[in-house]
């Protein structure tokens, strides 16, 4: 499999990637499953957490726990400082212009819903069009279906080819002066396809549409620069970036966020409340009603520190080499079919086996200690496109090894022995 397109953005590092050193940071990798060493290949569902993240959260609850933005006591002030410091880390991480553009949400899903309901519902009208793609996760389909029902806007899909790549000629045909929103995943969770989002964003802007990028699968595998992309919104989840669950980020251009009404009402998002009317707080607090997931934000900050120190570029290069090795090994397994063979892809090996349902593959692999995802990956339109009910999906992180790929291949062989 050729991944040269991806490799272009990666700078070569002189020292080899020291996977053994980084594995020591992840306590869970020492676990055993059914008496065998855990081989965790379900990173696209959620990534494991390094001890630096676990210890940061532990220390926060032991030493600093307090509510933020409201106390005059020492702990509250300390908690507020580390919470806001984490916002600064996110800003640097994705190269946003200002911390006003960084809104903490529960995850990528909530970020998309926020944009659909606050930006979309207040700007779209009947006859307007929203463009998404056949590759999307349900979280980047359903909010737009709901918005279409609410506003009378029409939802259109960019189709994909047999390799699982977006057909850009069709995208150009869909674009028109009716297009208001283009919502696209940066990297497909089901197939690993890396979408040409810069190109997609430029073309959307040419017709005056706004673009939201679902970066849930992208941030752990590639450097994201929202200024360079010029996207209007970008969302991602902390838990796929080696951080805690329940925390995510919505990036939005300041002027657009400024023009949007609040998504939820409550404490912290107001300036002044009278019994008749309230005035809203400044960005980004306008969108952060209620006590937030403080420990989650602080844990996410620790995760960003971790990947920054690790070097995402070196990790990404290592992952591409690992995927190439896995693809090469898998291609020699008789009866194994790849689903998703994009030229530009990363970290995901989605496959089927002749005569064996992916669910059975998942159970038998688990018996060998190998954790993968089996199912439709919350991307049922992708399954429909390939006319299959489900796939087995191995998804890699920088802490996976060639030995683990070999364990996967041996476990696949065991599946075939059970059924033949």
């Amino acid at each position: 499999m050729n991944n040269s397109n991806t490799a272009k953005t990666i700078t070569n590092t002189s020292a080899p990637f020291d996977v053994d050193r980084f594995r020591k940071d992840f306590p869970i990798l020492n676990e055993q499953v059914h008496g065998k060493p855990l081989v965790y290949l379900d990173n696209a569902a959620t990534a494991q957490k390094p001890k630096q993240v676990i210890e940061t959260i532990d220390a926060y609850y032991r030493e600093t726990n307090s509510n933020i933005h409201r106390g005059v006591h020492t702990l509250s002030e300390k908690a507020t400082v580390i919470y806001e410091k984490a916002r600064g880390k996110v800003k640097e991480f994705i190269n946003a212009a200002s911390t006003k553009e960084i809104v903490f949400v529960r995850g990528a899903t909530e970020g998309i819903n926020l944009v659909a309901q606050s930006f979309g519902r207040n700007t779209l009208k009947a006859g307007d069009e929203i463009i998404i793609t056949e590759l999307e996760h349900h979280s980047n389909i359903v909010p737009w279906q709901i918005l279409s029902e609410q506003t009378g806007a029409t939802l259109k899909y960019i189709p994909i080819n047999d390799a699982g790549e977006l057909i850009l000629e069709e995208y150009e045909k869909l674009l028109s002066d009716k297009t208001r929103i283009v919502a696209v995943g940066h990297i497909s969770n089901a197939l690993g396809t890396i979408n040409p989002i810069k190109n997609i964003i430029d073309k959307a802007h040419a017709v005056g549409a706004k673009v939201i990028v679902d970066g849930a699968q992208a941030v752990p595998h590639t450097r994201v620069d929202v200024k360079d992309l010029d996207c209007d919104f970008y969302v991602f989840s902390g838990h796929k970036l080696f951080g805690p669950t329940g925390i995510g980020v919505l990036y939005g251009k300041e002027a657009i966020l400024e023009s949007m009404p609040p998504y939820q009402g409550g404490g912290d998002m107001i300036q002044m409340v009278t019994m008749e009317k309230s005035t809203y707080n400044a960005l980004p607090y306008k969108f952060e009603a209620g006590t937030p997931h403080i420990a989650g934000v602080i844990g996410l900050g620790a995760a960003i520190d971790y990947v920054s120190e690790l070097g995402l570029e070196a990790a990404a290069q290592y992952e591409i080499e690992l995927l190439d090795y896995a693809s090469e090994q898998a291609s020699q397994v008789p009866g194994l079919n790849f689903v998703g063979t994009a030229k530009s892809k990363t970290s995901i090996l989605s496959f089927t086996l002749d005569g064996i349902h992916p669910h059975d593959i998942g159970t038998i692999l688990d018996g060998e200690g190998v954790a993968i995802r089996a199912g439709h990956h919350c991307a049922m339109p992708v399954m429909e496109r390939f006319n299959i009910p489900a796939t087995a999906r191995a998804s890699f992180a920088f802490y996976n090894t060639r030995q683990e790929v070999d364990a996967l291949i041996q476990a696949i062989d065991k599946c075939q022995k059970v059924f033949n």
Partner: protein
Amino acid sequence: MPEGIQLMFDIKDLYQEVIVDHNRSPRNFGKLDDADTTLEGFNPLCGDKLTLYLKTDGKKINDIAFDGSGCAISVASASLMTDAMKGMSLDEAEILFNEFHNLVTTDDDYDAESLGKLAALAGVKDYPARVKCASLCWHTLHSALQGDHTPVKTE
């Protein structure tokens, strides 16, 4: 099982020969043209889908068949169920439904003789995520016999 005790794990306890066989060559597979009851079952989590076809005279299951797609556990369970149910009275069918339910969800002793080949599905109870696969066809049959015409979902 107490924590810390390593399960002696053998995947063959789940995928017994009879299950592999019924998955490979499912019995009573296909549409029943003169069915008087047809009901769909759907497992949204994994995408298992089946349609159950029944011919009853109000007292007895005269004929039963199924089609659809799913994992080995769901296909073998439907194959074994239809084999066992053919010719059974509705009262017997209800008893078997309850026995099967106990088999795959509890550690209670089961009557190997009355369950026959269905006992091969006993291993499913050690795989909580797979109990739905084994029971989809059973819940569908149960609803059909109760006269419920809403498609069955295991969620």
